């Protein structure tokens, strides 16, 4: 049997997936062994995969003339590209490449799953023929991508946090910096250089005692830094989700007559919005910053996946937003 030659977008998709799979494996290796070459190889591969993904979406648009994000295949493709892009931006800024393997592995899984929804090219149904499609979909998908990154950082926080507790060998609840509680603050005194006091004293002590696990744990950013990073990623996702819901409502008003119809997809997005609004409010409380908000960030991943895929694929046939035809 003779196979038709692959089109440029298919070639780019294969390149992206391969870069992600290999890049994720190398970066996961880097997570555990921290050899510089692993980062130097893994990070460019991941960035190359991400570029190939955007090129793939553009190529598809050029080849078909149809906005490529109107089905689950295109939307998941952008989702995984955005997850990698947002993560890479944070990785460059905060030197986070050691965590990249997990984000990229998740992105690759979502991308591979998205490929199973590739039905070829379908022109959009009337309700999707709107410039809002070009605005609303990328914004919502990018917000979901931010929540994915936040959940991976949340998991890292919990690894370090429970690592500290295990190392300390006692069930002591670490509290984030509070005026009343244990302090993670630093104090600059005369002649002392500025330093940030460690928030994992047990791990530090174990490092001094030569524990390799503790040495590994201490190579993760401090709990305070991880908490701030999670907050910052959610602070990307929540406003984007808000804009996504607003643009969606605007579009719905044009297409269906009402800006809000209590359609499952709308209400699911609202659930996710309420969830992250809860995160933001709890994060203003001293007692809730730290492990509790990290748990929320982690729980955000299954919730986001349900909102994104569960509603489309499982309950989608009752939704105006269903990708099923």
């Amino acid at each position, binding site marked *: 049997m003779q196979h038709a030659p692959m089109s440029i977008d298919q070639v780019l998709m294969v390149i992206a997936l391969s870069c992600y799979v290999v890049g994720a494996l190398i970066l996961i290796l880097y997570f555990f062994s921290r050899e510089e070459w692993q980062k130097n190889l893994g990070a460019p591969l991941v960035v190359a995969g991400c570029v190939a993904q955007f090129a793939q979406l553009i190529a598809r648009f050029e080849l078909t003339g149809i906005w490529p994000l109107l089905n689950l295949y295109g939307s998941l493709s952008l989702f995984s590209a955005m997850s990698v892009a947002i993560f890479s931006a944070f990785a460059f800024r905060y030197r986070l490449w050691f965590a990249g393997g997990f984000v990229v592995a998740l992105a690759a899984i979502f991308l591979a799953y998205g490929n199973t929804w590739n039905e070829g090219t379908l022109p959009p149904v009337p309700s999707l023929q709107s410039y809002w499609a070009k605005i609303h979909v990328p914004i919502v998908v990018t917000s979901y991508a931010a929540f994915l990154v936040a959940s991976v950082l949340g998991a890292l926080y919990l690894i370090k946090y429970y690592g500290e507790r295990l190392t300390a060998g006692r069930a002591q609840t670490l509290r984030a910096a509070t005026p009343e509680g244990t302090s993670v603050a630093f104090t600059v005194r005369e002649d002392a250089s500025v330093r940030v006091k460690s928030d994992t004293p047990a791990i530090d002590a174990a490092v001094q005692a030569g524990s390799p696990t503790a040495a590994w744990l201490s190579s993760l950013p401090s709990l305070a830094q991880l908490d701030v990073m999670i907050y910052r990623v959610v602070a990307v996702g929540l406003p984007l989700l*808000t804009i996504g819901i607003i643009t969606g409502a605007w579009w719905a008003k044009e297409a269906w007559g009402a800006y809000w119809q209590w359609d499952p997809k709308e209400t699911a997005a609202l659930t996710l919005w309420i969830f992250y609004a809860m995160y*933001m409010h709890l994060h203003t409380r001293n007692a809730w910053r730290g492990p509790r908000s990290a748990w929320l960030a982690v729980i955000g991943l299954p919730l986001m996946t349900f909102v994104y895929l569960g509603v489309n694929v499982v*309950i989608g046939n009752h939704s105006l937003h269903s990708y099923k035809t």
Partner: protein
Amino acid sequence: MTAVARDFVRTFSNVLFAVSLFAIWAVLTLLGVVIDQNQDPQEYFGAYPVPLARAILRLGFDNVYHSPWYIGIIGLILLSLTVCTFKRVIPARLPPLRPVKVDKIPLNASFEVAGVESSVRQRVEAFFARHGWQVRKRTFDGTEWTFADRHNWARRGVLVAHVGFVIIAAGTTIYWARGFAGETAILTGQTVTPSQTSASLTLHDFNYRIQPIATKSGIVYQPIDYVSHVTAIGRDGIPHRATIRVNHPIDVDGTFFYQASYGFAMRFTVTHDGVPVADLSSRQLEEGQGLSLPQSARSVQYAQFVPTIDKLTGMPSADPRINRPGVVLNVFDGDQPLGTTLLPLGQRLDLGQGFSIVPRQYTLYSGIQYRYDPGVPLVGIGAFVLLAGLCISLYLLPARLFVQVSPGPAGCTVGVAAMTVKGYEMFEQPFSELIEEMKKGE
């Protein structure tokens, strides 16, 4: 204030209480995602075990978003938001300038500087002013304090977000109080004045375009366009020709008309003992409507239009384009269904008791949705206010520095403490950099 009022204020101004309300709101919202909404009761009994289905119906979870629970929780959230804003957010976010115990604040630093107190104080103030901090001085009990604020105005971001939420709620309430919505089917050539509106619409024609496309899982008949050509007359009495298509509604006196659906009205010839029953034969039925036969318990329902009957199987084809059209008819005797038939146009069906029916001619109708919602501008403004507040709160970190200069061994001791609206962790790095720079400048 009575004890009850105090308890009320204490509870409703507690953020954890507010967040618990959010959690209930999220769970109720999710319930409406998982449980199919607004279905017939039998659907729930079919889909869930009987006790669960009964619970869903009794608790109103089949229409959760309009249930007392849902409206109640949003009411409580608004109440909590209002109480919290006045009792907690404003005092916490807009604190007056007051002295603190510098070394009791987790983010603090102190260092020695040469020079007399007044000149050190001046240098410190100049340093902050150079770095864009708003400097203010106060004296408390004879002690001079310098306060430096960054992004002080942004402390109001939370208030802006909260006000946005309230505006959205107000906009939605306006729709409940004064808006209306509905759907109407207009047959080609017909004129309708939808109830509550001042507009009359005449449908000249309705067109739809469907394109068969080969996909990996077979042929998909993709709808491409639905278009109604109408003449609309509003309050001014002047007829306007207009086109309504999906995503392109028309506005008549503030009411918007949307292309929503389409269908096929049918004219049937009903005969009794070979003689046409004039009254029934003159009617046009929309899908789902029926005819009761005179002096008989029998009735016939026009269930569905079938655009194409497959030649080989004689069954409805997936092709929605009109080729060999037919209709699906349900026949009843009283409440008892007697049967269902797929009948090509022009063919006769014997209904018993001397009656027979022939589907004669179809007419396209356009399903038009209409809506008057005077709350939309307010909801739109609220959404943008909320978004603005969210961005101000999330991207700017208002911080206040408390600076005290006191005589020290090398001249003066400068003590600096920092507080932000988001705790201390977020400001550790900038604070350490600031202090380093201050020390270098000395």
